[in-house]
C-alpha cells in the first residue's frame, strides 16, 4: 500500500501499524530491540545487587536508611498512569482519530515529565543533602547507573514522542506515521515495566534491608 494514501475511518485498516512492510519491520524491530535492552538492564540489575550497600570501610549509608517509599510510590503511579494514557492513544489510533492520539500522547509526555522531575529531585536530595554522590562508593555508582539508565530511557522516550506529536500535529494519521506512534508506545510500556522492577529491587527490597 502506498504510504501517501489518504484514509477515512471506514477505509482505515485494522492493524494500520502493520499494514505496510515498513510498518511491519518497525513493529518487529522494536520488539527485537527491547529483547536486547532487557539484557542490558539485567546486567545493570545484577551489578546493582552485588554492589548494594558496598562501600569504603566504615561507610555509614545503607539502602535501608537512604531509600523511602513515598516518593518512589508517587513516581510509580505517574509512570503507570502514563502507560495507560498511551494505551488510550493507541485506542484512538485504531479508530482513525488523530486528535485523540495527539491529546493522549501529550498527556503521556506530561506524566513522563512529572516522573522525570521527581527523579531529578531525588538525585539532587541524595547528592546534596545526604552526601551520597556518584563517586561516594560502589553502592552509589551502581545505584545512579541503574536508575539513571532508566531515566535516560525516559528522556529518549519523551523526546521521541514529543517529536512525533510536533511532526504530526497538522496532518492526520497515515500508514507512514501510524507505525511510528505504535513503536513509541511499545517502547514506553517497556520503560514502565523496567521501572516496576526498579521499584521492587531498589526501593522495596532496599527498605526491607
Amino acid at each position, binding site marked *: 500500500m502506498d504510504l501517501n494514501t489518504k484514509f477515512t475511518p471506514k477505509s482505515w485498516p485494522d492493524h494500520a501499524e502493520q499494514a505496510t512492510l515498513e510498518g511491519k519491520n518497525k513493529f518487529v524491530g522494536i520488539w527485537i530491540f527491547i529483547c536486547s535492552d532487557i539484557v542490558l538492564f539485567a546486567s545493570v540489575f545484577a551489578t546493582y545487587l552485588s554492589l548494594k550497600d558496598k562501600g569504603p570501610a566504615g561507610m555509614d549509608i545503607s539502602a535501608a536508611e537512604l531509600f523511602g517509599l513515598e516518593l518512589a510510590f508517587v513516581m510509580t503511579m505517574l509512570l503507570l498512569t502514563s502507560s495507560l494514557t498511551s494505551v488510550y492513544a493507541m485506542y484512538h489510533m485504531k479508530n482513525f482519530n488523530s486528535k485523540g492520539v495527539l491529546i493522549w500522547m501529550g498527556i503521556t509526555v506530561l506524566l513522563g515529565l512529572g516522573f522525570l522531575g521527581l527523579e531529578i529531585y531525588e538525585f539532587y536530595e541524595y547528592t546534596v543533602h545526604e552526601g551520597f554522590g556518584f563517586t561516594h*562508593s560502589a553502592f552509589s555508582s551502581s545505584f545512579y547507573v541503574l536508575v539513571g539508565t532508566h531515566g535516560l530511557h525516559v528522556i529518549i522516550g519523551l*523526546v521521541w514522542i514529543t517529536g512525533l506529536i510536533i511532526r504530526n500535529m497538522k496532518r492526520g494519521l497515515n500508514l507512514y506515521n501510524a507505525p511510528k506512534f505504535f513503536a513509541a508506545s511499545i517502547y514506553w510500556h517497556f520503560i514502565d515495566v523496567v521501572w516496576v522492577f526498579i521499584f521492587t529491587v531498589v526501593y522495596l527490597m532496599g527498605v526491607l534491608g
Partner: protein
Amino acid sequence: MSSVAISKKTGFGATLWDYLTTVDHKKLGNMYFFAGLLFFAIAGFEALLIRIQLMVPNNDFVSAGLFNELLTMHGTTMLFLAATPLLFGFMNAIVPLQIGARDVAFPFLNSLGFWLFFLGALFLHLSFFMGGAPDAGWTSYASLSLYSPGHGIDFYVLGLQISGAGTLISGINFIVTIITMRAPGMTFMRMPLFTWTTLISSALILFAFPPLTVGLFFMLVDRMFGANFFDHTMGGNTIIWEHLFWIFGHPEVYILVLPAFGLFSEIIPVFARKRLFGYSSMVFATILIGFLGFMVWAHHMFTTGLGPTANAIFAVATMAIAVPTGMKVFNWILTIWGGSIKVTVPMIYALGFIPSFVAGGVTGVMQATAPLDYQLHDSYFIVAHFHYVIVGGIVTAIFGATHFYWPIMFNRVLNEKLGYIVFWVFFIGFHLTFFLQHFLGLMGMPRRVFTYQADQGWDLYNFISSIGAIMMGIGVILLVVNMLLSIKGKPVNQRDYWGDGRSLEWALVTPVPFYNFKQTPLIRGYDPYWIEKHEGNKEGMTYAEPLGDIHMPHGSILPLIMSIGMFIAAFGALYHPDGVSWSVPVIILGIGITVACMILRSFKDDLGYHVHKEEIIALEEELYGKGGNK
C-alpha cells in the same frame, strides 16, 4: 523522481558521495568487506611484529610496553574490527539475495551500523598516535586496566563502545530482515544455512553485546568520571568485569564461527554436487549451539575461584557444546561422502577447514576439563586452541567465501592458480605457527610474555612458529594481489558462475542490479535455484509477481554525520580525567550533533521512490544486452 537514481553520475566526487550516502546492502557489504580487510591487514602486521619479537629468546626487537600494546591491539582488532566486519560483508552482500529481498529491513540503520563500526575502529586506532594504545589484553581485565596509565584503555573503552553499537544495530537489522522479508514460499525450513547462521548469530549479538556495553560503560565511568564499580577500596568488585566480559566473550566466538559454518555449508554442497546432508539437524545444531553458547562463559574463569560446584557445572555445559558441533562436522563429511567432488579453491578451503577446526574443538574440550585447565590456563596451549578455531574455522571460511562469492560481489573471478598457491602457503604457515604452540604451552610457556629465557626447550618451536607466521603473511599479501589482479579480469556477466549453484543468489545474472531481483521470485523448495535448473527453467527463477514498479529507499548522509557526532563526543570523554575545561562541552557538542541528525531524520519524511517498469527494462538491456536478464 526515480530517473535520478538510474542515470549514472560519474567522476570521483560523485562515486565518493554515492558510497558515503549509500543504503544499498550490496555496497555496504563491499564496504564492510574492505574495511574488514584493512583491519585484518593491520592486525596481521601487529601479529608479525609479535612473532618477530618471540622468534629468538631474550629478544629486544620491541620493548615490553610496546609488546603489550601490539598484543592487545592484535586481539581486539582481529575479533571486533576484522573478523566481524568481514563476515558482515558477506551477510550484507549475500543474505538479502538468498531470501529474495530487495534490501534489508532498515537500510538507513544498515548504513548507520557501518559508519559507527568504522569510526569506532578509527578512534581505537588513533591511540597509536595519541599517547599509546591499550595494553591490558583484548580481555582488558579490570584489575589490570583500571590503573593503566595514559589513555590507552580509554581508547579501547570508547572505541569498542561506538563500534559495538554499530554491531548491535546491524544484528537487529538482520534479524528483522530475515523474519519479515523472505520471498513467498521461503519458509524457515527452506532457508539456506548461511541465512540461518546469520539469523542465529545476530540473535547472539542481540543478547551478548548489551553485557559488553554495560561492562565498558562501568569501565568508562570508573576511569573517566570517578565511579567505583571495580575499585575494591571503594566497595567495588573487579570480578564483575570478568563476568560481564565473558558473558559477552564466549557468545562472541560463536557469533563469528556460526556464519563461518554457514559459509561452508553453502560451499560444500555446491562442490560435492549433492544436497546438504541433514539439513534440519544442521538448523537444530545451529540453534542449540547458539543457546548453549550463553551457558558456558565461566569456563574462561575456572582459575578465578568460583568454587568447585560452579566449575563443574560450567565444565559439563562446555563439553555439551561439542555434541551439536560434532553433528555439523559429520553432516559436512556426509555431504562430501559419495558426492561427485569438484575441487576448486573454495572447496579446498572447506577440506582444510574440517580437520583444522576439529583439532581446535578437541583442545577446547580438553580445556573444558576444569582440573586440567588449571594446568593449561594462561599458557600457549590456549593460544594454540583459539587460533585453531579462529584461523582454522573463521579465517578459512572468509578466504574460501571470498573466492566463492567474488563473482556475485564484484562480477569478476579470482585467479584459480594463485588461489591454490595462497591456500597452501597460508595453510601450511598456519599449522607451522600454531601446532607447536600446543607443546610450548604444555612445557610451561606462559601466554602474553614479551620474551623468554634461552635453553628451556622453547627456542626451536618458537622459531618455527615465527617462520609459519611469516608464511601466513605472504599468503595474505598474495590474496590481496589476486584481488587487485581481478580488477583487470574479464567480467563474469552470467548467472551461476560455478555451474552447480543451488540457492537463490546464483539465479541472478551478475552484475546484480541495485534492486536485486526485478520480480520477487517464488520459492518452491529447499535449494530453489537447483529445482528450477532441473526443471529446465532458462530464466533463473519462477516469479511470484508480474514485472512492475519497484519501491526503493533513498540514500542519506545522516548516518555518517551521526557517527561523527559520537566520534567527537568520545574525544571529550577521553580527555575528561585530565581536567581540561573543554571536555564536557565537546561531549555535549558530539551528542548534540547525533541527536540533531535523529530529529532531522524523523522530521523529514523518507518515503523512498519508485523505479518504473520501463526504466527497469531499459536498465536490464543496458546491463545484459537485448532481451534483458534471460
